[in-house]
């Protein structure tokens, strides 16, 4: 039961990264893909009807994590106190950047919120990457299962590390390039020339960033946390996840060249899903490794809620996810197609 819930929470987080990932990616490439106010409006219009629903995956994943693994939720949220609060403020700024810019028709007002949107998206992406880096690297858990990390200490990977060290910053850069590529693919899919052409160029450039930083991060993970490979030698079928990631990586490159936008977008989605699943598979059954004493690591077993709660939860979760799939299918179908012009009022 706890393994199932581990997979379901991982699934929801991956959905978040894929869906809100292209919103964040749009923010990263915002000023590169769009060169004038009208083009910037088109970019925001491309994510306008969907970004809020995408962000809900983070909230729902958080809620599900709380419900299935209460101790993990309590421990990680209090331990990552400062970065989470910063993430909150950035999420606020990102949302306001999208929602407020079209409220006043003044060029300075609009420019300000476009900058806020892009700036918050870039920082959020790096923080999310660094967060994943912290989970892979491990945190200084005590015997009660709690910890606290300052923002940084010496920037080296030591047991008493901070949120930011060279490894987690590297993971932040991976996230930056991956989501830049993913966002470029989305924008290429949703727009016409000249934005579409620029998005193709950006996707091509960021692809090399993805390859270089991913290889570096892989090598770094190997050196600081080699036991992440243990599951792969015990369960060979697990190689399907990294294989999917590599297939996605190839697709990102190939469909960019052939300008098949939807396939390129699906490829970057596959890459994200494959890489996150590969990480989750490597960590399991740990959910938060301890850098202090391996015995203090939080696992799915010592953080889970009791059987009855997890069982009734499965019933409503399955009902809920059917509805959610329905909403998303309907919303994306309604807003399908490329965006041509944006009316003054943001399309109301």
């Amino acid at each position: 039961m706890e393994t199932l819930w581990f997979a379901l929470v991982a699934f929801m987080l991956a959905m978040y990264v894929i869906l809100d990932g292209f919103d964040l990616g749009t923010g990263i490439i915002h000023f590169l893909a769009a060169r004038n106010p009208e083009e910037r409006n088109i970019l925001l219009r491309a994510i306008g009807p969907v970004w809020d629903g995408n962000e809900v995956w983070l909230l729902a994943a958080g809620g599900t994590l709380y419900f299935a693994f209460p101790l993990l939720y309590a421990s990680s949220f209090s331990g990552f106190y400062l970065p989470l609060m910063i993430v909150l403020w950035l999420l606020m700024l990102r949302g306001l950047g999208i929602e407020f810019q079209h409220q006043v028709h003044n060029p300075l007002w609009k420019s300000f919120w476009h900058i806020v949107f892009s700036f918050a998206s870039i920082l959020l992406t790096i923080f999310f990457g660094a967060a994943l880096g912290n989970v892979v690297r491990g945190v200084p858990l005590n015997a009660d299962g709690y910890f606290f990390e300052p923002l940084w200490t010496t920037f080296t990977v030591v047991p008493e590390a901070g949120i930011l060290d060279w490894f987690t910053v590297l993971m932040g850069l991976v996230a930056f390039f991956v989501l830049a590529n993913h966002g470029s693919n989305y924008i290429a899919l949703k727009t016409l020339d000249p934005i579409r052409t620029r998005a193709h160029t950006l996707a091509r450039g960021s692809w090399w960033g993805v390859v270089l930083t991913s290889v570096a991060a892989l090598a770094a993970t190997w050196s600081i946390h080699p036991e992440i490979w243990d599951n792969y030698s015990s369960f060979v079928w697990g190689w399907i996840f990294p294989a999917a990631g590599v297939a996605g990586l190839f697709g990102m490159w190939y469909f960019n060249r052939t300008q098949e936008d939807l396939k390129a977008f699906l490829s970057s989605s596959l890459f994200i899903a494959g890489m996150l699943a590969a990480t989750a598979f490597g960590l399991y059954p740990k959910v938060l490794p301890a850098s202090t004493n391996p015995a203090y690591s939080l696992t799915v077993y010592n953080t889970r809620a009791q059987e009855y709660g997890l069982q009734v939860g499965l019933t409503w979760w399955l009902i809920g996810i059917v509805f959610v799939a329905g909403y998303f299918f309907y919303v994306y179908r309604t807003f399908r197609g490329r965006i041509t012009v944006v009316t003054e009022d943001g399309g109301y």
Partner: protein
Amino acid sequence: MEDALLINRLQFAFTIMFHYLFPQLTMGLGLLLVLMKGAFLKTGNNRYNEAARFWGKIFAVNFALGVVTGIPMEFQFGTNWARFSTFAGGVIGQTLAMEGMFAFFLESSFLGLFLFGEKKLGPKGHFAAALAVFAGSWISGYFIVATNAWMQNPVAYTVAADGTVHLNDFWGLLLNPWLLWQYTHTMIGSVITAAFVVCAVGAYYILSGKHPEHGMVFMRFGVPAGLIASVLVAFPTGDAHARMVAEKQPVTFAAMEGLFETKEGAELVFIGQPDMEKLAIDNPLHIPKLLSFLTHYRWEAEIHGLKEFDRSLWPTNIPLLYYSYHVMVGLGTIFIVVMVTSFYALKRNTLPSLRWLLWILMLAFPFPYIANTAGWMTAELGRQPWLVYGLMRTVDGTSTTVSAGNSLFTLLGFIGMYFVLGTLFVLLVLKRINTGPVAVEGS
């Protein structure tokens, strides 16, 4: 440790009070939007659709702020109240996770359709989108109030060997007896806020002569909704909720009412300041025996006073609790008077000419916000010193690893952030009101 507790409480109180300014409007306004879209669908009168569009835009700004200020609430359970989350996550994780699955997705998906998709959806589809947004916001409210109701009146749980609590009865949690009245009372309170806000803008448009026709449309929705809600919030929901408190949390009830001595035929205090040194009410204005009657329907019924209970069980801030409760009840009474008068004038078609009444309606809108906030303060201060009533004290729920200095840093950050948000919000809403409803082509 004392410092950290205080700062954690202040941060939660500040962020939740600011947050609740927005959902309390959107939950009520969602209902009014459905009514406006429904009236348009039925009559084809474009004024109704223009009203719905105008309020849809105000709704959108409020919704956006509700979302961005709501995320910190869920986060804070983990960040600042880690021991509470570990203790109670096995129960309230259920309702919080269900809120995400059943409410947030529904609301956010259909709000996009409601705001961006009127042309694509057609009138019926657009009405359905409004209905879905309304349903989402009320479902969201249900799960949140269910979470609070469990903290007020823990049910459906067992205690595990490690001291944490776990759910043992799913429907028991969702049908907590406390929940029925707390939920209906809260939701109807939010309809009052929306009704007063709609009336205030309507009154402004009529008084200033800017959009008198739309102003009257707003009144035709706002006044009846305000009247029905003002009555329902007092009776049966407020009344039943207070008696629930008297039954399950008698100490809280005594503190709310400012009753220090246990007595038969207890008086109902309207005005007076609790003096915590003398343990009495200063300059009380009260009606003898009324409290006993309202609580037990018997004039001579016995009500327990604060002195009967051990001091360690007393709510930590009795005067503030007492004032919150009295402010809420006092304002609620005034709302009934204002709305009965307005409804009478609306029915006799004299409302547009009664300028004094329009002035009152235009200026009254902040008071439902105050009353709703005071109501929540009553619930939360009344639960003290418990975080989960009778099971966990607030002092035992904080995160041990987060220092007071770090919490203060984020509290200050939230204050700064919310100051900016609040200013922008007021600016944008004023601008919308100034622009006014736009006539639909062909009307």
